[in-house]
């Protein structure tokens, strides 16, 4: 399948190995994610967006995974899936509208930054409670099978989420019903201040698959080839009716948990420095250069380009009008109940009287 706007996916829809011509667009997507991430952190410090949870360090795992999926697959993300979103053809501008919660935000300003979703990209809107999407992905897989849609659902979550109720229910239902589901766990070492080593006494998170009769695989999340291969194999199993796979992508959260977090309270600089060494960007860049497909000059140019793309998107999104206050009463139900109609009239009156200022 050709790379498309609606989903930057692998050139070959069924290969288990990443084609060399995919490496450059993957690299570009990772760089774009990094540029957007850095910009958002800055904007949060400047008070221009309210909150931000960076993806830095996890881009390669997400982008390689997204690359291995099919645009028709449904993804059930957590709040840290910026790299994945880009592989679904979500643009920086669309993301920024969500971060600003402005009137172009597809979510109508309803959720915090990072909690986006785009139905037309089969990218389900994420929520904050940890893990809830995992069992939902299993339900959606059952639904897809019932409709004879040959696709998989892929759900994304962290090491902390493996302790959630929904992980337990999701993997169990997935195993029992042999759903076409990929459980993609990004073990980034930390659940805020709580280290992976304390989260569970299991040796690896992939080991948890055995409790549900599901194969578990560990991959180096900074290695796009490994990730791509594992996801493609899992996808092949899933669509052929062999059931779900649990993939543990070992990565590291290089930044803070969110802009509300100060990681110096709980981890050492040296641990971070060590993981920076393994960062996918340098690694991929050198892989491309070594293969004779890339140069430092091209790299500098690309960096300029993605930064400019982000800057333009920021300018546009920041100029968009804020959300209309009366929309607060929409979408509770398919249509407003009489009580909500009355509350809307009350709000109109309050706005008119200046009692409420958005």
């Amino acid at each position, binding site marked *: 399948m050709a790379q498309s706007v609606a989903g930057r996916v692998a050139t070959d829809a069924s290969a288990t190995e990443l084609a060399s011509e995919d490496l450059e667009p993957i690299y570009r997507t990772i760089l774009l994610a990094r540029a957007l991430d850095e910009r958002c952190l800055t904007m949060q410090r400047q008070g221009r967006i309210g909150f931000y949870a960076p993806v830095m360090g996890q881009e390669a795992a997400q982008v390689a995974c997204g690359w291995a999926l099919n645009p028709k697959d449904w993804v059930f993300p957590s709040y840290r899936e910026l790299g994945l979103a880009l592989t679904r053809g979500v643009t920086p501008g669309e993301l920024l509208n969500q971060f600003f919660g402005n009137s172009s935000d597809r979510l109508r300003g309803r959720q915090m930054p990072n909690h986006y979703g785009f139905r037309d990209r089969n990218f389900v809107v994420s929520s904050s409670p940890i893990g*809830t999407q995992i069992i939902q992905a299993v*339900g959606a897989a059952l639904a897809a099978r019932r409709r004879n849609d040959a696709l998989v659902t892929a759900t994304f979550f962290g090491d902390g989420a493996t302790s959630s*109720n929904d992980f337990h229910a999701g993997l169990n239902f997935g195993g029992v019903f042999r759903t076409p589901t990929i459980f993609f766990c990004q073990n980034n070492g930390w659940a805020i201040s709580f280290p992976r080593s304390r989260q569970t006494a299991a040796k690896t998170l992939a080991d948890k698959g055995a409790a549900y009769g599901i194969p578990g695989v560990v991959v180096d999340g900074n290695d796009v080839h490994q990730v791509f291969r594992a996801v493609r194999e899992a996808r092949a199993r899933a669509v052929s009716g062999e059931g779900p796979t649990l993939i543990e992508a070992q990565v590291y959260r290089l930044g803070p948990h969110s802009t509300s977090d100060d990681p110096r309270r709980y981890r050492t600089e040296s641990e971070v420095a060590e993981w920076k060494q393994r960062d996918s960007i340098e690694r991929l860049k050198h892989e491309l250069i070594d293969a004779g497909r890339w140069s430092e000059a091209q790299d500098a140019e690309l960096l300029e380009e993605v930064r400019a793309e982000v800057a333009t998107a920021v300018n546009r999104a920041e100029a968009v009008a804020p959300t209309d206050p009366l929309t607060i009463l929409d979408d509770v139900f*398919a249509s407003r109940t009489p009580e909500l109609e009355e509350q809307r009239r009350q709000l109109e009156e309050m706005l008119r009287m200046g009692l409420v200022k958005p």
Partner: protein
Amino acid sequence: MTEVTLVQAINRALRTAMAADSEVLLLGEDIGVNGGVFRATEGLLKEFGADRVVDTPLSETGIIGSAVGMALYGLKPVAEIQFLDFIYPGFDQIVSELSKFRYRSGGQYPCHVVIRSPYGGGIRGGLYHSQSTEAYFAHTAGLKVVVPSTPADAYGLLLSAIFDPDPVIFLEPKRIYRSVTGEVPDGDHREPIGKARIVREGADVSVFAYGAMVPPATEACQSVETEGVSAELIDLRTLVPLDVPAVLASVEKTGRAVIVHEAARFCGYGAELSAILAEKAFYSLRAPVSRVTGFDTPFPYALENVYLPNAARIRQAIVETAKAG
């Protein structure tokens, strides 16, 4: 039209909906070969197959969470929770996900799930087979809450719920699953969600009840006639959205209100009804608003008849309210 019990009406509504729409499916514990512990899904496995009558592992998180996922994809799942008392392992999926998906996605993801569950006391089920916690759901914006009290309403409201675009918590008064019978239409006949039903008209006192409290309330309303009190009985039928015009119209006429539910009183559903009256029918009210409810205790086993409101207690409240002021 056929004369059936309330639980049979539920069974028929499920069958009608499943026959009409192949995207309706059921999931829950023991609903397949066992036909449900109350037999609400009896025969449906045979008729519609294991793809559409899905017995699940013992996890309400799993039942409700996967129903949410199915609904996001577009199906119309109807989840059974064996007893309302066991819904709490799935509460997070209800209050954080099911009720909020449409809103938080800016309308992108409606979440069309019905959760059916037997609720309430009267079967000597003790603490965990008797509770009546409708207020939790009624307080959760984004959920509709329906409680039928007759076979016809159970049938018509369940069909409406299944084809409603919003999530519906459908509470079935298990105590009267078999003790109440009535005629039920045959085809896809729906009762509208959001409309109360006047069980009997009256001039002196308005009585509000729902679910398994409707029969004792009816008995009480009849019995006060001998004391010359004319009581109007309203079966709310849907707790959210509440039929506020019907509630106000009645109290504007009678000036007096008795509210009945079996749930604990404090912050129960009756509090909202009373608050609406204190706000919107204040100038019509001629006596304190009275609530006949369970006590503010957990639901007991040996003393369930002490806990549950009965016709005598309701009668007493009607008489006192009629005389007050």
